[in-house]
């Protein structure tokens, strides 16, 4: 189930040869995984939209326009307006900014911390490993959303708080998976050699173990991006996420339920944005995982489910 010890795992770093080969890799990747490519494209598009929000949004998302309150999609406001006349399209675009920023930050923070911790666990083993494993089990004993809610209840509801709360829920995953990888790499001949020649643990971890973890790390990060986006949206929907008036997709959904039958455009478009973005990143993540190490796939899933075995 774990990577068979005899063969070194496939590395993610593409050939550092002539420039054309990176592009070539991408093309080959796309041809083999059409869906993932599309997902990647949509994902990149969303990122671009988020970054270029000030340029793309037709109106200021925070500006109220009292002459056009509650208007359905029309020529002037392509996705309609909300109860105070703010343009829905602009808010969805800026929502992308906030949601993606939160998701990326949380995933990078959480996965990185988790992975580094996992490397340390896998390589050092012993008591450190034992205690760390228990801590991660404790973290994983909480359902994601509930843990995030409890943490944000404690530390407040600003942007940083939400990022922090979601990041904490991602740590155990990185810890578990990267630990397994580190465990197997530890037994490799060249690592043994490094130890024998007197290298410090830290040196070995950084120069020999870490590089091999990049591939699984990338897979982890992309796979969890979608989850992070949904958690952030759920927090916003429940009213414990990033506070208004900053538009986030979750907030917008919650704010839409202010009348008996809310204007459909307010309830539909933010949710659609969430779905498409999560879909895109999930497909991308799938493709990356399939490419980087297909042997890892079902085993990987099992590991994600809580590798309690070596």
């Amino acid at each position, binding site marked *: 189930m774990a990577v068979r010890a005899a063969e070194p795992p496939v590395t993610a770093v593409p050939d550092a040869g002539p420039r054309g080969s990176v592009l070539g890799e991408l093309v080959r990747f796309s041809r083999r995984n059409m*869906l993932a490519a599309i997902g990647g494209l949509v994902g990149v598009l969303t990122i671009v939209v988020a970054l270029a929000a000030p340029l793309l949004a037709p109106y200021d998302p925070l500006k109220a326009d009292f002459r056009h309150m509650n208007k359905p999609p029309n020529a002037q406001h392509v996705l309609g307006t909300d109860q105070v006349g703010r343009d829905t399209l602009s808010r969805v675009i800026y929502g992308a900014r906030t949601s993606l920023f939160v998701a990326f930050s949380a995933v990078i923070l959480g996965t990185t911390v988790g992975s580094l911790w996992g490397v340390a666990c896998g390589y050092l083993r012993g008591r450190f490993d034992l205690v760390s494993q*228990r*801590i991660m*089990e*404790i*973290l*994983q*004993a*909480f*359902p*994601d*959303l*509930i843990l995030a*809610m*409890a*943490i944000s*209840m*404690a*530390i*407040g509801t600003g942007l940083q708080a939400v990022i922090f709360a979601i990041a904490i829920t991602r740590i155990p995953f990185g810890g578990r998976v990267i630990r397994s990888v580190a465990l197997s790499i530890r037994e490799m001949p060249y690592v043994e050699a490094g130890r024998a020649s007197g290298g410090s643990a830290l040196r070995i971890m950084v120069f020999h173990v870490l590089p091999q973890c990049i591939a699984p790390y990338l897979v982890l990060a992309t796979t969890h991006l*979608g989850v992070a986006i*949904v958690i952030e*949206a*759920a927090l916003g*929907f*429940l*009213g*414990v996420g990033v506070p208004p008036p900053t538009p986030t997709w979750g907030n917008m*959904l919650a704010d839409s*339920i202010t009348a*008996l*039958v*809310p204007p*459909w455009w307010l*309830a*539909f478009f933010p*949710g659609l944005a*969430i*779905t*498409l973005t*999560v*879909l895109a990143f*999930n*497909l991308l993540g*799938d493709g990356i995982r399939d490419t980087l190490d297909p042997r890892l*796939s*079902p085993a990987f*899933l*099992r590991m*994600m*489910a*809580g590798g*309690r075995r070596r």
Partner: protein
Amino acid sequence: MRKYLARRAVYAVVTLLGVSLSIFVILRVLPGDPLVAILGVEGHARMTKEDRVRIMADLGLSAPLPVQYARWLRDIGAGQLGKSFFRGDTVAELIAHRGPITAEIAVLALIVSWIVGLPVGILSAFKPNSMPDGVARTLSVLFIAIPGFWLGMLIVLALLFWFGWKSPIIIVHVWQDPWQNLQIVMGPGIVLGLAQGAYIARMSRSCLLEVISEDFVRTARAKGLREGLVVMRHALPNALLPVITISGVLLGFVLGGSVAVETAFGVPGLGRSLVTAVIERDIIVVQNLVLLYAVIFVVVNVLVDLSYAWLDPRIRYS
């Protein structure tokens, strides 16, 4: 096996203790004042410093933290799950009254996920890359991406708009009136079940694909056994194992997801109580409910582990 059992049990207990400590630590840092909800807006405005100290003491919020933690554990051990700050309702009553609803939702979700996910996954595995497989995989990926609470929101709006229908407003348990009860749990159960089903479809598909190419299945086929038999006796059990494992993880998704989905459907379940308690900063309720969720999750995962270990000969006979 026995050693494994013992070890696992010890780990579980340690985890639970750690869980309780984490909850306690997390929740003792908070801005906002539960006293406003208790005294009402006007009352809080007219409260003096001495009043405040006295009321905090009454509610046990002014003892030193380790003492509060110890008292909490002792109370739980004694079966006393505490009272809400507000209205004096006990958490035990809350769990007894609303717990069954959330439990039903979880069970319904599980059933739906298996009924929907397994057949789809199996079919996909047997005809990989065909059109139905493509459709199934697309739908799976779609249902994983759609936020459950959004889907719930849309369904509620659609039902309200087109049929003027909204689910029953007070809790009716399944032993009181099954049809009313079903109306309450149906929405969240199905929505969560579909999302779970998508995971199961993918999982079983990839596991089956792996197994199908394995030697022993090929051998069975070569021996001339019928396809169906091959599936039933050889492939299926291997696909089921990881599905069981992942169901444990998916329970976590359901417990967490039910919080948002219950809110979207307006179902009076435990998840919604948790959200209300978080917003009202009702510490005792949040503490004990989160503990409950974590305990359930840990217990289920231990059971899954044990069943996995029992089924895996490597561990069973060690």
